[in-house]
């Protein structure tokens, strides 16, 4: 999937540990780890809001997109 999670970059910039962020936003370490490695299907808006608040950033700082024309042909399962 061309949407990339760049949470690791943001964590490094803010010099924060994933464990602390997970605790602050109410996610388990496993869930945050899955998010960091892009192994989730999506992020809820409320989770994103909490992340942005804790990391003092915008959603675009956590997510990135690699343009791919084939994305329009992907069927929703």
């Amino acid at each position, binding site marked *: 999937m061309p949407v990339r999670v760049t949470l690791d970059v943001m964590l490094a910039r803010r010099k924060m540990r994933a464990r602390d962020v997970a605790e602050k936003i109410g*996610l388990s370490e496993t*869930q*945050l780890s*899955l*998010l960091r490695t892009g192994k*989730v*299907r*999506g*992020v*809820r808006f409320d*989770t994103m809001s909490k992340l942005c608040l804790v990391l003092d950033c915008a959603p675009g700082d956590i997510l990135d997109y690699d343009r791919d024309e084939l994305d329009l042909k992907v069927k929703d399962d």
Partner: protein
Amino acid sequence: MLKLNMPTTALVTRTAIVLLGLALFFEQAGARQLLHLGGVNSGMMLTPTHWISLVAPAFYLWAMWAASSVFTRLDQGDAFGPALVKGLRAMGGGLMLGAWAAIIFQPIMIHLITNNFRAVQGVRLNFTIENLTLALVGLALVLLARHGQKLKSKLESFV
């Protein structure tokens, strides 16, 4: 005072199951006594047709019991967890099996037994609207449970 850890709907359903089970038992026993079918074994009711006629109602009672479990789970706030899915599947399965027993198994077996398993021509099926409706509702419940489980696992893959 005795406090039951069960919602009213589940309690009413389980009470109904017990009462319906007893009613079924006494109805069958009464019919046999009335028709003088029992002979020596009348008290024991051991004829195969008697037991076969109880197959479909037994499945329906099982489905009702599963429904009471579903009510309990819903009351406990179980939002489509594995236990609820299992309950819905059991409910649907009970209704389907009961309906198919009433449509296919019971008529054929009772017919064969009453004719002492001699070669009997034709197939006996009991395709009534009630039986078919129950079979379809049961199937719908099983499919809904399956679909719900898929949806739940998809939702859980969102953080």
